[in-house]
């Protein structure tokens, strides 16, 4: 029995498999071998860390009751918003028919699935009883809990995303449209609800408030665009499948997406700082000062300058409006988002809202991530990079030239026609025939 992947034939047979794998490894370049080796080592590190978390209650994390959510939650938030941002950016092409964003499709979808499953994996390791979560969420849904809704939305999102990827690679265009649209909707709802998970906690002044979900959504868009920027920069740099299109269309598209995300993030950050410095809420003020001049000032200002200001300048200046410039801007922006989510989760807890169990934290609650936590986070990044490298090598990443999309004006026209005709018509097939994709 043989399986064909990306033009290569693989024989499914224990003896042949070894030879195939060996042949594959030998056919790789030295650099690729080294890269995959490094990632394997890091993944092994993460796996070792993961083993430590299996027995519930063993104190392998650096967290305490005063600082219950550590870097695993930061990492979960990061991956969960990145997946939504990837989906949002790419849905502009398929869902809204904006031609510029068309070539982002396949890579975004695969990365979205990867980051989402990684996010689920991290949260499963952070929870003491992940299996109970599934049964508990189904058999005793707690509708007042934002976390329940977040889980429900992300679960739905995963389903739509899987359908989207499947339909994309098997050419089920009509299903693909619907899956894309549904996934895009979920990609807006899910990170917003994730923001609400933090935003409802009036015990934590820094997280509390209506702007937390908004910020989460905007950060999601920025994170997704930045990761896509990194990927497409590498695609162009290493001349991977479709790099021509990537250079001509993806890079400019990413520049626009990044600019939107960076500007929106800056505006929201400015609003938050003004609010934090003028507020009557002491804990919120203290948290803001922790960022500006307190123990988290260095990472904060690095994030502001290197993660927001510099990439904005790189995108704005005509000189750096190149593939390399965009790539660097995307890298910096993604690093900024990583830092930002780390700061978000930490600063929300660093100012003591109360003594916890008699532990008086004066003035700040200490937290140092344990080696187990760090190794899991590193392993998670390595996992995404490893699987994506294999995808880049073996999956057919050529974008179809003509996508069936909801070309919005035509879609509206067809709906109107349906209403006036008083009968249902098969989803405006005719309208889409003229809608030939670009770049053939």
């Amino acid at each position, binding site marked *: 029995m043989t399986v064909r992947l990306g033009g290569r034939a693989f024989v499914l047979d224990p003896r042949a498999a070894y030879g195939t794998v060996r042949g594959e490894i030998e056919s790789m370049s030295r650099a690729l071998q080294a890269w995959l080796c490094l990632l394997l080592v890091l993944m092994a590190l993460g796996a070792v860390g993961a083993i430590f978390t299996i027995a519930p209650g063993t104190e392998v994390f650096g967290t305490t009751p005063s600082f219950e959510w550590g870097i695993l939650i930061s990492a979960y938030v990061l991956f969960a918003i990145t997946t939504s941002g990837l989906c949002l950016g790419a849905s502009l092409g398929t869902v809204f028919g904006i031609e510029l964003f068309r070539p982002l499709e396949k890579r975004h979808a695969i990365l979205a699935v990867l980051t989402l499953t990684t996010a689920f994996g991290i949260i499963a390791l952070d929870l003491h009883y992940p299996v109970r979560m599934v*049964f508990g969420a189904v058999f*005793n849904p707690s509708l007042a809990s934002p976390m329940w809704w977040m889980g429900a939305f992300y679960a739905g999102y995963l389903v739509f995303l899987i359908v989207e990827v499947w339909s994309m690679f098997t050419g089920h265009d009509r299903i693909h449209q619907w899956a894309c649209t549904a996934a895009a909707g979920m990609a807006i709802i899910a990170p917003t609800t994730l923001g609400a998970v933090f935003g409802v906690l009036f015990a934590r002044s820094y997280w509390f408030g209506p702007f937390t979900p908004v910020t989460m959504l905007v950060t999601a868009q920025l994170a997704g665009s930045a990761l896509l920027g990194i990927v497409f920069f590498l695609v162009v740099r290493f001349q991977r499948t479709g790099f021509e299109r990537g250079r001509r269309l993806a890079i400019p598209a990413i520049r626009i997406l990044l600019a939107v995300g960076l500007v929106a993030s800056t505006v929201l950050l400015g609003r938050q700082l003004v609010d934090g410095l003028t507020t009557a809420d002491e804990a919120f003020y203290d948290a803001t000062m922790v960022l500006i001049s307190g123990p988290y000032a260095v990472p904060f200002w690095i994030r502001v300058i290197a993660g927001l200001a510099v990439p904005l300048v790189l995108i704005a200046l005509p000189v750096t409006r190149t593939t390399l410039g965009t790539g660097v801007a995307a890298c910096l922006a993604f690093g900024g988002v990583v830092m930002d989510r780390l700061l978000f989760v930490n600063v929300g807890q660093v100012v003591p809202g109360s003594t916890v169990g008699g532990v008086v934290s004066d003035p700040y609650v200490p937290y140092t991530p344990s080696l187990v936590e760090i190794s899991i986070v590193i392993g998670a990044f390595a996992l995404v990079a490893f699987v994506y490298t294999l995808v880049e090598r073996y999956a057919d990443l050529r974008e179809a030239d003509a996508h069936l999309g909801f070309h919005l004006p035509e879609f509206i026209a067809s709906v109107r026609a349906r209403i006036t005709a008083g009968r249902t018509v098969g989803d405006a097939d005719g309208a889409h025939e003229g809608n030939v994709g670009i770049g053939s």
Partner: protein
Amino acid sequence: MRQLRSWLPTRLTAIKVAVFVAIASIVLGGTAFAAATLYAQYGAVKNVPNAEAWAALEPRYVGQAACGSCHEPEVAAQDASAHIDVSCESCHGPGAGHSLSDEAAREVSLTEPESEICSTCHATTAGRPATYPQVEVDEHYEGGECLRCHDPHSIVAVRPPDITHPRAKLPDCITCHAPDGLKEIPSGHEPVADRVCLSCHGRVAEPVR
């Protein structure tokens, strides 16, 4: 009758139906079993049995009444004192197991408190209400052996007997009764200053004629 028979399924159909019913029952039953198990374990209905389980835990602090059934004199002495609100188990630890029977009592012996426990409550400490009886322990009695004078249950200091001294005009006790002094310090006392002698012992009485 014939009409009725025509309504009934043929034999072949009956077999098919039987197989279908069997499979359906297994599937439905399995699903029902899984759902019932999981709902019983994870559903909201679980609140009541869980609260029952919390309520069914065994108390470890048994309360004053249980202590008094055997240790009547101590409890009575305490009830007559300012320590009336203090529970036996505050100082002696939880009584579960101890009070069950004589045999168990031997196995589960309670804490025999030392003098330190007095200063936990009565040492002068910032934050204590001003009206609450507090002492600078070392000033009150050097070494802080509260139980040497105080009965732990009735609290009142059991004053040592007044001293009948053969001599009428006396200098400080310590002039004679001191380490390497003329006389020994009676009854194994640690070397203590004069005023401390008199803070426990009654004033030196006139010699008996």
